[in-house]
Structures are given as C-alpha cells and as structure tokens.
C-alpha cells in the first residue's frame, strides 16, 4: 500500500513538477480551445454547404471527410508535421497538431451536423418555404436549431475525444500535459506526475461535459 502511494501519489514529486505540468496544462488548454472552435465551426459550415446539394462540391468534400474519419489522428499529425515541409510548408509542432485535429474534428462535426439536419421532418422545410422564406433562411432559422439540438450529445463525445487527442502532439514534441508528465516521470523515475496529469485532464474536460448537459437542457422542448 505504501509502495502504491509512493509510486503514484507521491505528493512531494507532484509538488516539485507542478509548475512544469502547469505549463503543459496551459498549452493543452490552448490547443483544445483552438481545435474545438475551429473544428466545430468548420464542420458546421461544411454541413451548410452540403445542404445546398451541389454535387461538384459535395463529392470531393465527402471523400475528404470520409478519409479524415478513417485515418488515425496520429497519422494525420505525423504527415502534417513531417511530410508538409517537403511541399514547402513548415509548421511548428503546435500548429501542426492543432491543424490536424481541427481538420479531423471538422470532418466528424460535418457528419454529425448533417445527420442532425437530415433528421428534421420534411414538413418543417415545407412550412418555412410556404411562408416565403428562402432556402437559406429556412435552413438557418428553422432546420438548424432543431438539428443542432440533436447533434449536441454526439458533438460533445467527439469533442472530448479529439480534445484528449491533443496529447498525441507529444509525439512531435509539443510540450503539453502528457509530454511534461512523461519527462518529469523519467527524471525522478516515479510515475506520480502522470497521476497529476490525469487530474489535469479531468479538470479540463469535466466542465465541457457539464456545459453540454446544460446546452441539452437549455434547448429542450416538448414534442
């Protein structure tokens, strides 16, 4: 028991490396906020574009979306960081990670928003159009609010998953929570910094889950 406490809950070690992990925390927080805001807004935009049903745009978009959903995030990050320089684009580890994950989240978010949009009853479209609203007005004021509400729980799951995937950035030397924790661990040969890292991830993502619950409640209506 003492050994367990000493290995994983060594307060002295945690305290010693707290400043280091705090830096990682700030970086992870920044990455997550950027990935989530860019990813979800891009996904929403793509879903709106898709609603217009222009095949010439939708077909390549679908291909890209399916591709991004199929490939493991780490592979996308590696390719962005190591392969793009050969095409003359050198990104910092931070930017490469954020760009890759935002792109992946956008692909998932597009699908989620799209399924929300298509699950709204056709009669809603008809009611809007029959009162003289144009396609975009009907989409924005009538269809989207209903579709988004359906999308929120799925979107939260995906957001948390992608948010945690920021730790993959440590593979290309982003000094995020996980990277800092593993460095600290190897310095003192004690895994307690990992426990601290786990706590930090909890602090980071529990508010997100709570916000999602709140949004679901806020936009609930009776049928």
């Amino acid at each position: 028991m003492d050994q367990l406490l000493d290995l994983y809950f060594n307060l002295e070690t945690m305290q010693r490396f707290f400043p280091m992990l705090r830096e990682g925390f700030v970086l992870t927080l920044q990455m997550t906020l950027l990935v989530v805001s860019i990813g979800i807004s891009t996904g929403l935009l793509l879903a709106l574009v898709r609603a217009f049903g222009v095949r010439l745009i939708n077909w390549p978009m679908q291909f890209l979306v399916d591709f991004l959903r199929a490939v493991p995030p780490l592979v996308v990050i590696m390719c962005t960081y190591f392969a793009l320089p050969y095409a003359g684009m050198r990104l910092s580890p931070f930017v490469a990670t954020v760009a890759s994950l935002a792109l992946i989240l956008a692909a998932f978010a597009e699908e989620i928003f799209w399924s929300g949009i298509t699950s709204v009853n056709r009669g809603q479209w008809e009611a809007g159009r029959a009162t003289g609203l144009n396609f975009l007005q009907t989409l924005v004021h009538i269809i989207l609010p209903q579709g988004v509400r359906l999308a929120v729980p799925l979107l939260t799951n995906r957001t948390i998953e992608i948010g945690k995937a920021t730790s993959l950035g440590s593979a290309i030397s982003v000094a995020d929570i996980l990277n800092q924790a593993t460095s600290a661990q190897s310095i003192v040969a004690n895994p307690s910094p990992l426990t601290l890292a786990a706590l930090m991830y909890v602090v980071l993502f529990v508010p997100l889950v709570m916000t999602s619950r709140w949004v679901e409640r806020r936009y609930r209506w009776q049928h």
Partner: protein
Amino acid sequence: MSPILSARGISRCFGSVTALAPSDLDVAPGEVVVLIGPSGSGKSTLLRCLNLLSPPDSGDIHFRAQCITERGVNLNQVRRSIGMVFQQFNLYPHMTALDNVTLALRRVHRMSRENARARGMAALEEVGLVEHHDTHPGKLSGGQQQRVGIARALALEPDIMLFDEPTSALDPELVGEVLSVMRRLRDRKMTMVIVTHEMGFARDVADRVVFMNEGAIIEQGSPEALFTTPSQPRTREFLSRLMEQR
C-alpha cells in the same frame, strides 16, 4: 369575375405513379373551393402544386394574372401571398406560438420586431389564442396547434389560403374549433382552397365542391348539386360509401 388563381393542365408524377393527371382549376376572389375524394385521389397533390411546394411536371399556373410556373419567377415572393395550412401543423417546435407566427413577417416582410409582434398578436387573436402567445407548440393541444398554423398563414395577409386536410390529424373533439375558425375566415371573404374529409363542413362553407378520383377531377359544382344530385357514377359511389359509414 376573373380568377385570382388559375391552373391549366397541371400534372404531377411520382416515379411511375401519376398522382395528378393534367387538370384545370380556377378560383375566383372570395371563393371557397373544397376538394373531396378518396385517399390517394390527388387532392393534396393538386393543392401542393398550387403554391409550387411540389411543382407540377406540366401545365401553367397563373396567380393574380402572373404566370408563376415560368422560369425565373421569384417563388418566395409569390408564396408570401399564398397561405398554407398543413395536416400535421408543421409548427416550429423550438419557437413560441408568437414566434411561429412572426418568423416570416420579420425575415420575409422585413418588419420590425414591434410591428411583427403587433401583427402576430392580431393573428393569434383572430384564432382565439392570444393568451397562449408565449407557449411552445408541444404544450398546446392539436386543435390549438392547428389554429396557430392558421394564424401563421393569416399573419402574412395572403390573397388566398390553401388547407391540406387541416383536421385529419386531430382528435374528433378538437375538429370543431378549427372548423369554426375557418368558417370565420369564409365570412371575411377569404379566398380558400380546402382539402377535407369533413363533408358536413364542405357542404356548409363551400361555394364549389370538386370531386377527385385517381388523380383526376371527375366533377365539380355547388355543394347542393354535387352532394344531392351527382352526375358521375364514381361520385355517387364515393358519397354513398360515406353515407354507409355514418
């Protein structure tokens, strides 16, 4: 009087099924036309062609002397003047009754919030639901929801209103409140085209009854003529089957 709405040879297919054979329909200002017929006879299809919610495959429709089936016609503009009431109400569940009514006023007519509110409240008043203006559709009864649906169409001050089986989705005891709102509209000389299975109501309010069967208009005339002395065997058959059910 020249018709306000005039359809010539409009037809509509769904795949290989002819839902509506080429048909003509004229509606005079202030006239109440009721479409009756068995399920699948093309009544709703004809009605939905009239505001091009389901555009006809062939034929022309003139509305207020403008051909609205031509290419390049601004349909959003046209639809402002054609109100539509749906069988399933199709109210927006995420909005209050008042917002349901004022959405198009604000977005299409570009009215200010206050003006739209005033017009919306007047429309709700007309259907007797002012006190429910802040209620979401899910908390209203079916009859109340349909009255909001009517108010939504009415608020746009349309020249003609289309009703697609407005009482078919309602519990029997809620049908009356919707029909009485429609009766009041008739008294106000609102031009209406109504698809309904309520024969008693059709007889009361219609200036003209149109009987349809298998996607075609079989015969039309005044309610007395059509209900008491129908000329076509299929009309007689349809009406006698209804009588048996009573």
